[in-house]
């Protein structure tokens, strides 16, 4: 089962269709237990991050057979 948070819902609205399709593929892989991400650090250890091109999907999988999507972020550089 998949759940999404309100934070994720906001982030996904900014994605184009091509990224959304890659996101769907990645989510399907995660639901099948494939190509999982790595845990974040410190207070956010329960969250994992996995790359989708230059995007990072942040999710949690604390409960068996359930994935919660929390965020999707694009890498940013350049401006200080």
């Amino acid at each position, binding site marked *: *089962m*998949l*759940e*999404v*948070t*309100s*934070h994720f*819902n*906001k982030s*996904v*609205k900014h994605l184009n*269709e091509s990224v*959304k*399709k890659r*996101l*769907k593929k990645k*989510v*399907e892989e995660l639901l099948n237990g494939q190509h999982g991400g*790595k*845990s*974040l*650090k*410190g*207070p*956010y250890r329960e*969250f994992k*991050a996995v*790359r989708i091109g*230059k995007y*990072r999907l*942040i999710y949690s999988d604390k409960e068996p057979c359930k994935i*919660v999507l*929390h*965020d999707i*972020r694009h*890498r*940013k*550089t*350049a*401006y*200080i």
Partner: protein
Amino acid sequence: MSVSVVVHPSPTIPYTRITVFRELLDHLRSYVQSVLEDPKNIEAVVQELLKDQNTLKLFYRASKEVLNFSQSDWLEALKSFYALGERFKDAGIDVEDALDIIAEHDTWKLQQIRKNFDKYANMFFDFIVNYPEDANRYIIVDMSVFLLLIATIEARSLEKLRALGEELNRFAEELELYTLTFMIGMDESWEKELDIIATARTPEELRRVLEID
């Protein structure tokens, strides 16, 4: 602090800044040589470096100089930094993601120190106090990335560049997890928006929650 800032000062950069960066590079020379001899031994080299008070003081001074960078200084530094990728291409190793991750980390950190210093310092202090092992590892990872990039400039063989590139990719992957951790730690909306607003059990429902047309 982006390594390229240290190794490729622009002709327009003030003299004192160049002096500090050069002095730092001189102090780093023996560490860089050790990294070049055995890139896989980088963590042990960093552990030694972290005991070297004189070099750490120079790091502090160089970091202060970076804080005064203008936007054009920073873009110039990033340009030199990304040029390092060409050296790795010649060695047949792709470090494009690693360079992006490092640039993102350095740019974001500089932004926070300059624009949100109190909040960033509080977040980082809490991280150190409550998760000392993770904080220690972060210093090792960040410093390893720095030394690997400096070593890249000095590497003279493709074999050595490949070895450095492999280590760089490994550490960048870890650095990215810290960057995301700190970004979330600074994002006030994160904790407020953890409520579940939709579920999906079928492929059709998955399309709906991902808002795919």
